[in-house]
């Protein structure tokens, strides 16, 4: 008798688990494919290689930022400063390379370290001073926006003295090896960042604590884990990744544009949410986030090809975000 009940329980449990983990990705991925089918039927230009590469190119910056945001959101936090932090890091690269004439690797390192430092400041505000993440990063968002303008004197910094700088995102290493696949480096960087982040989240103690913090911070603290330290680390890593995004965007524009950046954080958060990462923390995947970022780019690109007015593109993106989150809620309820 008990064994029968047990067996039934187990099969119920198994199917529940299966649908939980895989559903998330399947649904997001299916929506991406569906969107692409719709657009390719609607316009023959959509599936042109140039256009597809353009979509990837457009995903690079938002994708990297969304990966950064994913770390924070898995802990149950939020980071509103990713966009302006990206700009700040781009400006720092400009200061090192153009103002001070340092070699390119130093500039790259400086941007990433600046991002990590700013992230650790946010993390400290949140973990040690107990300021809610929304407020702490809202403050950082404005602070960094202002600093970027102050440091650059409100003018763009051009990378004319560093001729190789645009190559960071615009050249194609893959294209040099496989000429039929001219994928720009910016996209390559996105994939590398995504793969490394995914490994970090699933295979390292850092990743384990990231999920654990979002799952039940108090239980983790009572397990004797230094939760404050790991939380600061999460924001630090996230900030470093924002630095990488800063390099990609600066390289693509061949300049650090200090006025840019605000608004990017919302696109990044949208990508994370569409990708199935829970805003209440504890669950999420990098793959989901990348699919989420691609959905946003495909949507923007497809609507533009169909000559839908810019204003309406924003409306549609908004609707998609609401639908994605609602689908997630429906899935959880069953």
């Amino acid at each position: 008798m008990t064994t029968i009940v047990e067996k039934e329980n187990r099969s119920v449990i198994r199917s529940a688990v299966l649908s939980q983990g895989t559903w998330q990705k399947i649904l997001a991925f299916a929506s991406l494919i569906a969107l692409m089918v719709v657009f390719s039927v609607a316009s023959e230009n959509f599936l042109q290689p140039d256009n597809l590469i353009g979509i990837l190119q457009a995903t690079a910056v938002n994708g990297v930022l969304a990966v950064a945001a994913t770390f924070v959101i898995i802990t149950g936090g939020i980071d509103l400063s990713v966009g302006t932090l990206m700009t700040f890091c781009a400006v720092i690269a400009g200061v090192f390379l153009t103002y001070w004439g340092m070699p390119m690797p130093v500039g790259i390192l400086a941007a990433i370290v600046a991002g990590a430092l700013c992230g650790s400041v946010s993390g400290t505000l949140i973990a040690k001073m107990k300021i809610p993440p929304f407020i702490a990063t809202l403050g950082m968002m404005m602070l960094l926006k202002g600093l970027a303008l102050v440091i650059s004197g409100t003018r763009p910094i051009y990378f004319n003295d560093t001729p190789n700088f645009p190559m960071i995102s615009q050249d194609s290493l893959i294209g040099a090896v496989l000429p039929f696949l001219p994928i720009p480096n910016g996209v390559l960087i996105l994939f590398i960042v995504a793969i490394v982040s995914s490994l970090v989240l699933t295979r390292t103690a850092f990743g384990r604590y990231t999920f654990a913090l979002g799952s039940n911070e108090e239980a983790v603290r009572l397990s004797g884990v230094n939760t404050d330290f790991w939380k600061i680390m999460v924001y630090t890593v996230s900030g470093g990744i924002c630095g990488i995004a800063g390099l990609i965007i600066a390289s693509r524009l061949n300049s650090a544009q200090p006025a840019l950046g605000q608004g990017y954080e919302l696109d990044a958060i949208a990508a994370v949410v569409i990708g199935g990462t829970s805003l209440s923390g504890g669950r999420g995947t990098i793959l989901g986030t990348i699919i989420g970022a691609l959905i946003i780019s495909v949507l923007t690109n497809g609507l533009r090809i169909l000559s839908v007015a810019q204003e309406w593109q924003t409306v549609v993106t908004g609707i998609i975000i609401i639908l994605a989150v609602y689908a997630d809620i429906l899935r959880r309820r069953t």
Partner: protein
Amino acid sequence: MTPLVTITDLDKSFPGVKALKKARFDLFPGEVHALMGENGAGKSTLMKVLAGIYRKDAGEICIEGVPVDIASPRAAQDLGISIIHQELNLMNDLTAAQNIFIGREPKQAMGLLLDEDALNRNAASIFERMHLKLDPRAEVGGLTVAKQQMVEIARALSFRSKVLIMDEPTAALNNAEIAELFSIIRKLKDDGVGIVYISHKMDELKEISDRVTVMRDGEYVGTVPTASTSVDTIISMMVGRSLTETKTEIPDLSRHDVVLEVRNLQRGNAIKDVSFKLRKGEILGFAGLMGAGRTEVARAIFGADPLDDGEIIVRGEPVTIRSPRDAVRLGIGYLSEDRKRFGLATGMDVAANIVMPCLNRFLSMRMFLQARAIRETARSYIARLRIKTPSDAQEVRFLSGGNQQKIVIAKWLARDCEILFFDEPTRGIDVGAKNEIYKLLNALAEQGRAIVMISSELPEILRMSHRIAVMCEGRLTGELQAEGATQEDIMRLATQRRSLTADAPGAKMEGATA
């Protein structure tokens, strides 16, 4: 006189538990009827059925002689039944008057605007009826707990309640505030309101109640007039079940080392001058009623809450424990009574939870998780503690309470803790799993681990403990050798409030240890 409320043969089940079995209760107008029983006896469940929070499975409820079906809290309110919960349900940022009339605000200007004046006038007239001096415009968050309770009572009265249910109303009140509450209860009595009073505190019941009904294990035990019944009779009615479980042998621990000693722990009102010793291989039972401060003591020693004062000595060395991290390093583990909130990351899998406190041991290059080693460790504990789970990759929230508890235990065994605090280790666990947990505790003690077991179930305390410490209101009211101790002894210490303790505890302790 027709009773206000008559409940007969009421049944109520929750998944896995029969909470009420043919429960009975009645209440007359102008009466304070106390409802007593151990934790889990079914008092709150019975009253929640009456207040429309739970639906009954079977049985009958009559209000003034008429059978009724109470489908929702709203329906109960319409019948004139109000409940004041142990945890107050007030909106701290609103005023007293706004709280009382929330959802029923008087309107003006064709229903478009709130009539704040009428609101405050109505509230003031209720306060007047209660002979209570309170400004209706006072923000509730700024009031004392006692005053907040008065606001709850006023809200109940605003529904013209005939039946007022109070669930442990004095849990958070000091003596002066209790006196204030009692004078209001007496006035309500004079107005013909029937009051159901749930409490653990004997002296209060003696003072305020007219009759006492005792429940045990979801069943009706009896109803007695308060004035002519002794406290001892009521206690024996509460604990009267026979003890069939076999008692464990109590080992001679006098030559074992003291691994943990605490002296004069102090923390606000929750912990008052608590000192005790714990030996290697010993199970020290911490008895007391809910809110007696036992959990607070455990959490303070574990570094989860800060201490105001006191010394902690681990293996002969005085130590400072500022965080759970310090405690874990000293080999102290704490298994929370609230597994879901404090013990487990329920969204994560079994293996992740088991290795959480000792993840450092499973890293290569101090960074990468050794997935196979983690899985092997998890599997060995799943086998050793007989945790029923389809695999180590199962999310913890899909497992039963007993298995979740075993995972919490596995977690601390994997960390190799020598001193373990078990806070209500069998709460919400069915009987079979309970026995397994008991065996596990005994085995751990035999291996030489020192265990503090906090439990509100007296049979469990008597069965498992080698020594019993009893707490009441933040103080240790006595220590008993388990040999020969009875439920009555413990209950007496657990209900001993400061006002009554003048001579009793010393005599008790001597009597027990002699």
